[in-house]
């Protein structure tokens, strides 16, 4: 027996759908059964005032502002009252109006005066005040009002005024039902009732994740945004609205910035209704945009002064962190980013012409001397599609080199490798929102609530609506709190677990034989391999009990529609490709691909990882994954670009570093990439960077990498340019310019074009739009897309009709992208991590991100909100381990691996398993990647960030290091 497949989110209007006919204010209307009176009235253009109701939330009917006369004994709350046949509704009678007026008086009596109301004095759209004005309710003096209920300013960006709260429950629904954060409730009773965070804690001390959804829900001044960077919060009419996309993660939330042109800053951001994020945002999108206004932005081209040669690290931090001189610890700064005062004196300001001439000359010379192998370029997944496309075109055509890569190497390269081999396409087969149609979803190796917060809100919502969630992860992240089954496996044992599950699926004969026969290849080999992994054996390896493995097998095998979402816990292993192969096999043998609610979705990290890969920032692929070693593809691009191209695959990020040390690559162009913190084994990166003959860094801030640069080019931030970005769902969206770049900083695509022109390429693009048009010509997946038809919410690719359709949600409905159209199942044997814990290094180190921070923190640590919420580096340790090691919460510890050591604060956390320690890698002063190992996956070439052996020692609190990250 299989589960019946639930209807898709928007069921088609079937002719037999039951309807109701009623009369509202004398006009007859027929609506689908279940429609509320409020909705029906609205369809007739009749506005009924509402306070507790908003179409984004389930109606609760608590305020009674929307009452209407239905002829019953009492007035009915129209927002919750379903239409009934032959109902006669009057929305406005003297009695109804009187009822609303009295209600308004009662509500207004203990509100803050409007001159002091936190909303009326900022955005000026307090809905209660608007109703009061409609009913001429000004001051109400003769009514009792109780004692003040207080304010709460503990959150850095959200202000709470309990006196302005009318207990409409909108924020509770926003927090619980929309974002699934379950923070807000009510406390007390009667007049003393208030909204409460967790256990009536201060908001800033509660489990609130500052997503701001409650602020956007609140009709009054109870929850309001605080100004950031002294840009006051103002009414929308006074601000300039710019529709764009969040610059942070792969979820790619559509948002609108409200810009104060006079002060040159953003006042606040709001989510926009796009099919993916549906107006939701997380803390980074809603509050993390002020980095672009940082006084530390680079504004002039810089050239390294002669005295700063031979090249090496410039800041004391980077020098002494290396452990090469002295004990490598003294003199370090307790936090913060690159110290400008130490680094800047080693550079002098230059004109653009001088800097660009130098770049073109030096790279040209190295190319002349060492040929294609001497040059490499790293783009960034933060760049737009157009920038990525131009950058790889530059490296490939000016230097005939395929040594062009970006940070996908560090996140999903192994997933992409496995997907290519298995299904012939690296992109997701369905969207994150499609989870709503799944009976079962496996979320694995992904701390989605932190790294893909808005996608995770849809996961949580799906579970409330009946999707079974199986969470498989070595850490008990917040997702575990929302899972039906949480399976805490030992790190690095994924293959064994999935083989065990598949063993059981086959034993129970829950295989979809038709699908296997018609649409897959190599099933027998797979079956033979997993035969050797009975659940008991898998249990021994993974530490998950056999019963749970059997249960997962049964649930997955019986699901009518199952989907898998995974993150870097799958890909960042030396067995990353094998891990992903197992997931592909899990879906394929049960027929869970190609239908709504089924499929494979590697959750992309950066806002434009998908796009940067699509655009060809990959050493073995031209744009749209056309193989660089395939002669047909090569000829196509040679024709388009008018030059001969290099037939050999290029080097990946990790391989380039090794090549530099061997004297291969000598000149590099870094576009917005900071491999210093994001690459494994920093010491090796440091040596490689110092050895380069020429390094040009194009970035918005001084990064650690820039300390090794010969030339630094001041680039534009996300907010200062136009371009398209492709999110994890394959949604291509337009980012729009909010500000001009500061000082002499320039837009990235123009810088790349200037270098190209100096290198003799006759480029003459006049706008990103032109670049996009050229790309689309060469990229079949992007066919039909234009700047104009992307519209305000973007479009999914592939898209046969972008004028009318949002695009294709589910791929592979009748064939896979492989040459034979079949899914290729690749069996994998379990292999242990490369560096197992031993007596000397008994703990397993896992690295990752925090909700509030992004990669090397160069943006997020310059954001007021994000930096104040998560200011310091912490190592997360299980309470049992902490007790054994003598570590205390908030105390300090030294974490040592065979490659380096760092010192940081300890966070005792029940989310870790025993024997594991988790360290986020955002913090330069305690850079986790000093510890990680640079072993790589043989296929995806991805480093093993998620597994290496470390030792942890408590450190006596030296001069009690300050907690905050100074950004000076």
């Amino acid at each position, binding site marked *: 027996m299989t589960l019946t497949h639930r209807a898709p989110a928007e069921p088609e209007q079937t002719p037999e759908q039951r309807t109701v006919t009623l009369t509202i204010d004398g006009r007859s209307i027929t609506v689908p059964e279940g429609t509320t009176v409020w909705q029906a009235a609205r369809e007739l253009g009749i506005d009924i005032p509402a306070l507790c109701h908003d179409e984004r939330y389930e109606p609760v009917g608590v305020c009674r502002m929307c009452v209407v006369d239905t002829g019953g004994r009492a007035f009915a709350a129209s927002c919750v009252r379903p239409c009934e046949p032959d109902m006669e509704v009057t929305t406005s009678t003297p009695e109804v109006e009187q009822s609303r007026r009295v209600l308004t008086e009662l509500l207004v009596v203990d509100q803050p005066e409007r001159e002091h109301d936190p909303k009326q004095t900022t955005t000026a759209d307090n809905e209660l005040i608007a109703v009061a004005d409609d009913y001429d309710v000004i001051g109400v003096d003769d009514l009792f009002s109780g004692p003040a209920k207080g304010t709460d300013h503990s959150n850095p960006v959200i202000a709470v005024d309990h006196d302005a709260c009318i207990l409409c429950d909108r924020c509770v629904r926003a927090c619980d039902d929309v974002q699934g954060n379950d923070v807000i409730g009510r406390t007390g009773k009667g007049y003393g009732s208030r909204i409460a965070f*967790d*256990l009536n804690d201060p908001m800033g001390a509660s489990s609130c994740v500052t997503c701001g959804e409650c602020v956007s829900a609140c009709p009054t001044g109870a929850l309001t945004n605080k100004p950031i960077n002294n840009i006051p919060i103002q009414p929308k009419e006074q601000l300039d609205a710019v529709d764009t996309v969040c610059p942070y993660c792969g979820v790619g939330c559509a948002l609108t910035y409200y810009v104060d042109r006079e002060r040159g800053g953003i006042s606040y951001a709001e989510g926009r209704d796009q099919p993916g994020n549906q107006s939701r945002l997380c803390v980074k999108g809603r509050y993390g945009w002020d980095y672009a206004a940082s006084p530390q932005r680079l504004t002039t081209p810089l050239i390294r002064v002669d005295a700063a040669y031979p090249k090496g690290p410039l800041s004391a931090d980077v020098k002494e962190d290396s452990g090469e001189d002295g004990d490598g610890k003294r003199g370090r700064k307790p936090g913060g980013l690159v110290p400008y005062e130490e680094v800047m004196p080693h550079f002098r300001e230059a004109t653009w012409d001088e800097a660009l001439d130098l770049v073109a000359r030096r790279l040209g010379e190295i190319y002349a001397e060492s040929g294609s192998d001497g040059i490499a370029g790293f783009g960034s997944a933060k760049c737009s599609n157009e920038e990525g496309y131009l950058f790889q075109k530059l490296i490939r055509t000016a230097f005939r080199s395929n040594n062009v890569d970006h940070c996908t190497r560090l996140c999903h390269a192994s997933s992409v490798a496995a997907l290519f081999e298995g299904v012939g396409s690296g992109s997701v087969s369905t969207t994150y929102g499609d989870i709503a149609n799944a009976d079962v979803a496996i979320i694995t190796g992904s701390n989605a609530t932190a790294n893909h917060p808005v996608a995770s809100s849809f996961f949580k919502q799906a579970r409330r609506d009946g999707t079974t969630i199986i969470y498989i992860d070595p850490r008990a992240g917040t997702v*575990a709190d929302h899972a039906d089954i949480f399976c805490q496996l030992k790190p690095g044992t994924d293959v064994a677990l999935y083989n065990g599950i598949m063993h059981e699926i086959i034993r129970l004969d829950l295989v979809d034989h038709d699908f296997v026969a018609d649409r897959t290849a190599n099933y027998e080999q797979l079956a033979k391999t997993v035969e050797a992994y009975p659940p008991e054996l898998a249990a021994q390896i993974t530490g998950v009990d056999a019963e749970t493995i059997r249960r997962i097998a049964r649930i997955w095998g019986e699901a009518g529609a199952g989907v898998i979402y995974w993150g870097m816990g799958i890909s960042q292993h030396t067995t990353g490709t094998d891990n992903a192969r197992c997931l592909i096999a899990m879906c394929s043998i049960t027929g869970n691909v190609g239908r709504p609610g089924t499929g494979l979705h590697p959750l992309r990290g950066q806002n434009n990882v998908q796009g940067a890969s699509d655009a060809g920032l990959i050493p073995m692929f031209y744009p749209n994954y056309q193989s660089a070693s395939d002669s047909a593809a090569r000829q196509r691009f040679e024709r388009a670009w008018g030059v001969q191209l290099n037939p050999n695959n290029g080097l990946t990020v990790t391989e380039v570093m090794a090549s530099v040390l061997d004297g291969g690559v000598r000149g590099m162009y870094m576009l917005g990439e900071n491999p210093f913190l994001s690459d494994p084994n920093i010491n090796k990166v440091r040596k490689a960077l110092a050895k380069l003959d020429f390094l040009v860094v194009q970035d918005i801030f001084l990064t650690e990498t820039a300390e090794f640069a010969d030339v630094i080019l001041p680039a534009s931030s996300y907010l200062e340019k136009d371009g398209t970005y492709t999110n994890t769902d394959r949604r291509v969206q337009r980012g729009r310019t909010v500000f001009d770049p500061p000082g002499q900083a320039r837009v990235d695509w123009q810088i790349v074009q200037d270098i190209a022109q100096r290198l003799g390429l006759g480029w003459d693009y006049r706008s990103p739009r032109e670049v996009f048009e050229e790309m689309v010509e060469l990229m079949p997946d992007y066919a039909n897309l234009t700047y104009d038809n992307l519209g305000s919410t973007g479009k999914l690719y592939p898209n046969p009709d972008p004028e009318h359709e949002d695009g294709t949600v589910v791929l592979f409905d009748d064939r896979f992208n492989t040459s034979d159209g079949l899914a290729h199942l690749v069996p994998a044997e379990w292999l242990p991590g490369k560096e197992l814990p031993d007596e000397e290094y008994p703990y397993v180190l896992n690295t990752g991100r925090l909700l509030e921070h992004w990669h090397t923190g160069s943006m997020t640590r310059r954001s007021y909100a994000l930096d104040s919420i998560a200011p310091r580096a912490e190592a997360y340790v299980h309470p049992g381990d902490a007790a054994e090691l003598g570590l205390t919460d908030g105390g300090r510890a030294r974490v040592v691996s065979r490659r380096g050591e760092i010192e940081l604060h300890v966070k005792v956390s029940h989310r870790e398993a025993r024997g594991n320690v988790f360290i986020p890698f955002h913090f330069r002063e305690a850079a986790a990647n000093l510890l990680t190992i640079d072993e790589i996956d043989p296929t995806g070439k991805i480093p093993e960030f998620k597994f290496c052996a470390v030792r942890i020692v408590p450190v006596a609190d030296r001069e009690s290091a300050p907690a905050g990250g100074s950004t000076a």
Partner: protein
Amino acid sequence: MTEAHEQARSAAREPSVDPATDPSAGEVFDADIHAKAREVIARYPQSRSALLPLLHLVQSVQGYVSREGITFCARHLDLSEAEVSGVVTFYTMYKRRPCGQHLVSVCTNTLCAALGGDAVYRRLCEHLGEEGRPLGHEETAGTPGEQGSITIEHAECLAACDLAPVLQVNYEYFDNQSPDSAVELVDALRNGDKPAPTRGAPLTDFRSAELQLAGFFPDDSEQSRSDVDAPTAAEETVRGARLAQDRGWTAPAMPDDVALPEVEQK
């Protein structure tokens, strides 16, 4: 839904992080309490229905609902802490500060107040407080939890108006009180005595009463029988019924299908 599927759904009710080993739930609740919690939950088709008895269970351990207690319930029931906290702060029977060995609730609602309940309450507050500083609502004389410690509260109608003024100790009735009798009663409690209530079960202490409210009765069946069987109605309360019985009075039968009276059109 298949069986496995259903299991998975109901497994959802199993907290994903085992509360028994979850340090954020503190060491306050031992394995026995966790077992009891599961027993309470098993009584209901929907786990969240178990919240009220579970909160009593928590009070039976700590004498109040602490933060750990809220976390304990939230984890066991897959509710948010805010939801649990909302319930705790709504009902007066859940105490947010540690209670004494005994909880004395003095009715100060209309009838009791008129017949002297306010005076009883005032006297007790003064008597249990210090010189010039009477106790207030939900304040405790002595160290909470220790022998002879007493928490006092004023209560809304205790549903014994015919015996007003009344008070309760750990929810057992002491009827027809006066300021003097009340003082005598609390003095006895402070001395470690447990005077018999006017009716109902014998006195224990607040935490034991809370355990019973959670639905757990002493193992000794004799004792629990007497708890349950003890007379709870007072003579005053049943006097009317008895009179009717003696005289053979009955109320007219309630017809099932009476039309609702016409209401004036608005």
